[in-house]
C-alpha cells in the first residue's frame, strides 16, 4: 500500500512537470525563425550577423529562436514553409536572393510577420527607401506583413572609396565582387565614385563573379587586377570577396573588408586590412525584433544609412598610424557631407 502511494506521488509529480513545461513554452514565448542564404549561419559575414541580432533579442526579450540554413536557392520556400507549419510568429529571411520566395510566402501566410534583409518590393523594387510620393509602399502591393531591412551600401562603399583613393600609390583601386545583385552593385558604385571624389584621375577596376562561395576564383581575379596595377582591393562578396582580400595580403598590399569588421572574423588577412565597410545587420535585426516586442513593427522599409549609424567604416586597427591625417580628414569630411545630405554617392537604382 505504501509502495503504491509513493509510486503515485512520483507519477503525479512527473505529470505535473511535463504539463507545466509544455504549457509554459506554448503560451508566452514568441517564436522567431531565421532562414539563412546559402552562405550559412557561420559565414563570418551577414548571415552570421543576422543570427547574432536574433540571439541578442532572444536573450533580452525571451524569444524562442531557431535557424534553418538554405543549401541551395530551391530550399528558400521549403524552409519558410517549415517555420510556418511549426507556427512561428516571425520569420526573418536573409538576403536579396530570397526576395521572391519571401513575397510569395508572405502572401500565403498573412498572419506571420516577415522581415527580409537587402530586398525591397513594389512599387519601389530594388531601391533603398520608400519615396515620399507613395503613401504606403507595401500595403499597396499586398505585402502588409513584410518589413524590408535595407542598407545604403553605396554610402559606406563611398567612404571606403575615399580612403582607398587617398591610400593608393599606383592610382588604381579595385573590387572583387560576388553576384551582380543590388546590394553588391551599391557597394561597388559607391566605392568607385568615392575613390574618384578623393582623387579625380584614379582608375577603378571591377569584376563580378557569379558566386558567393568561390574564394579560389576570387583570389585569381584579385591577382589579375593587382597585375593591372590595383593596390587597394575591396572584397565585396562573402567568401568570394575574401579570396580577393587574400590576394592583396599575399602581395603585401591593402585590402578593405565588407559587411562586418573582417579584422575580427578573417584573421589571416588582418595585416592588409585598412578598414571594413560595415553594415550592421545585427543591429537592424535586433531593432526590428524590439519593435515586434513593443507591437510597433510596421510593413515597409527600414533603411540603415550613415546618418542613423546603420552602416559605417570599421576602425583602422593596425593601419591607424599609417593612414595620413589628411586622408582621415577627407573621410571625415565625406562622412559629414553624406550625413548632411550635401553629397550624393552617384548610385541610381
Amino acid at each position, binding site marked *: 500500500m505504501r509502495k503504491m502511494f509513493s509510486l503515485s506521488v512520483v507519477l503525479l509529480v512527473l505529470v505535473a512537470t511535463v504539463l507545466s513545461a509544455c504549457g509554459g513554452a506554448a503560451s508566452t514565448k514568441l517564436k522567431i525563425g531565421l532562414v539563412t542564404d546559402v552562405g550559412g549561419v557561420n559565414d*563570418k559575414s551577414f548571415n552570421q550577423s543576422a543570427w547574432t541580432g536574433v540571439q541578442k533579442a532572444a536573450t533580452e526579450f525571451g524569444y524562442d529562436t531557431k535557424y534553418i540554413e538554405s543549401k541551395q536557392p530551391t530550399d528558400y520556400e521549403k524552409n519558410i514553409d517549415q517555420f510556418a507549419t511549426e507556427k512561428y510568429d516571425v520569420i526573418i529571411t536573409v538576403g536579396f536572393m530570397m526576395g521572391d520566395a519571401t513575397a510569395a510566402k508572405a502572401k500565403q501566410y498573412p498572419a506571420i510577420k516577415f522581415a527580409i534583409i537587402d530586398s525591397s518590393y513594389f512599387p519601389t523594387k530594388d531601391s533603398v527607401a520608400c519615396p515620399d510620393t507613395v503613401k504606403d509602399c507595401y500595403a499597396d502591393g499586398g505585402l502588409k506583413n513584410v518589413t524590408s531591412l535595407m542598407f545604403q551600401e553605396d554610402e559606406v562603399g563611398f567612404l571606403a572609396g575615399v580612403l582607398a583613393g587617398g591610400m593608393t600609390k599606383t592610382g588604381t583601386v579595385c573590387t572583387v565582387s560576388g553576384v551582380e545583385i543590388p546590394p553588391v552593385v551599391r557597394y561597388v558604385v559607391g566605392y568607385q565614385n568615392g575613390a574618384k571624389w578623393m582623387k579625380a584621375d584614379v582608375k577603378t577596376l571591377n*569584376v563580378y563573379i557569379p558566386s558567393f*562561395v568561390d574564394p*579560389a576564383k576570387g583570389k*585569381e*581575379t584579385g591577382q*589579375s587586377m593587382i597585375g593591372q596595377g590595383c593596390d587597394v582591393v575591396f572584397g565585396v562578396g562573402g567568401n568570394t570577396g575574401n579570396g580577393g582580400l587574400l590576394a592583396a595580403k599575399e602581395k603585401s598590399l591593402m585590402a578593405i573588408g565588407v559587411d562586418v569588421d573582417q579584422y575580427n572574423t*578573417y584573421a589571416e588577412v588582418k595585416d592588409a586590412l585598412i578598414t571594413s565597410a560595415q553594415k550592421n545587420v545585427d543591429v537592424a535585426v535586433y531593432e526590428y525584433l524590439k519593435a515586434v516586442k513593443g507591437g510597433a513593427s510596421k510593413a515597409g522599409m527600414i533603411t540603415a544609412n550613415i546618418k542613423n549609424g546603420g552602416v559605417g567604416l570599421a576602425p583602422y586597427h593596425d593601419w591607424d598610424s599609417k593612414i595620413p591625417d589628411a586622408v582621415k580628414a577627407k573621410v571625415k569630411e565625406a562622412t559629414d557631407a553624406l550625413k548632411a545630405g550635401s553629397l550624393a554617392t552617384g548610385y541610381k537604382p
Partner: protein
Amino acid sequence: MSTVTKTISNGARASLRGTRWVTVLIGAFGFFAAWILLNLIIGGQCRDKCVVDTLAQTLRVATPIAFAAFCGVMCERAGVVDIGIEGKMLTAAMVAYAVNLFSFQIFKNSMDVATAGSISRSLALVAAVASSVLMQLLHAVVSIKFKADQIISGTVINIMALGVTGYLYRQFLAQNLPAGPGTFPILQIPLLSQIPIIGPILFQQQPLTYIMLILAFLIHYMLFYTPWGLRTRAVGEHPRAADTLGINVFRTRYINVLLGGVIAGLGGAWFTLEAVDVFNPQMTNGLGFIGLAAMIFGKWTPFGALIGAMIFGLGNSITTTVSIYRPDIPSQLPQMLPYLLTIIVLTGAVGRATPPAADGTAYEKQ
C-alpha cells in the same frame, strides 16, 4: 597468346599516335583563336605583362582540373569509372585545411613560424592524400570486389563527401579560428624563372602546380613505356585476355584506382593549401567533373587531359581579363565563356573519343 597482347598494345599505340598530334594541334589552334578573339574584344589593351599574367593564371586554374583528369585517367585506363573525384577532392580540401590550421597551432609554440608553417603544410598534404585514398578504397572495394555499379559507387562518394564535410565544417571549423600558416609560397626555380615570358608562366608557380606538370610526364611514361602500363591498359581493354596471360586483374585495378585516389587528394589539397587558406562547403565547385570532361577531351591520355584542363583554365582567365577591361559588357556574358569554350571544343574539335573497352564493367573471374 602473345598475339592477343600484341594486338592490344598495337591497337592502343596506333590509335594514340594518330590522334595525339591532332589533339595538340587543335589545342594550340584553340589557344591562338581565343587569343585573337580576346584582343578583338578588349581592343588590343592586353600587352606583354597582361598576356604573361593571363597565361600564368591559366596554368594555376588548370591545376586542380588536371589532377582530377589524371585521377580519371589512372582509374579508367584500368577499367574502373570514377565519378567520385569531386567528393574526394572536397574531402581532401577540408582535411588539408583542418590539419594545416591545427598542427600549426601546436608547432608554432616550439619553433619559428616559417618552419612551423612548412611542417604543418606538408603534414596537411599527407593527410589530404590519405583521406582521399581512404575514400577511394571504399570505391575500389565496392566496385572491384563486390562488383557493384561503379557510377552508383562514385555518386555515393560525392554525396557522402558533401554531407560529411558540411557537417564537420559546421561542427568544428565554422567558428572564429586562429590564423593558419597560409598557403604554399611561390617556388622560383633558379635560372629558369628568369627566362622572359616562359619563366613567369612556367617557373614561378606554387609546388602543387609543378607536381601536376611532372605527373603529366610521369603518367605518360608509366602508361605507355613500362610493363605496368601495358598491363594496366590490357586490363582496361580486355581483362579476360589479360587474365589468361597471368595478369592479376584485381590487383592491377586496385593499384591503379588507389593511385588515382592519391592524385585526387593532391587536387583537393590544391584548394586549401595552394589557392586560398580557407575552407568552405562546396568549394570544389564542380571542378572534379570538369576534370572528367578534360579526360574525355584528352582521349584518356595524360597530355590530352592536361590540354583539356588548360583550355578550361584559359576560358576562365580570359573571362577575368575581359571583365576587367570591358566593364560595359554585362558581366554574365564573359562568365559563360569557359563553359561555352568547353562545349565547342568537346563537340566540334575532338571528334570521336573511345573509352577503354572494358571501362565501367566489373571483372568476373571464371
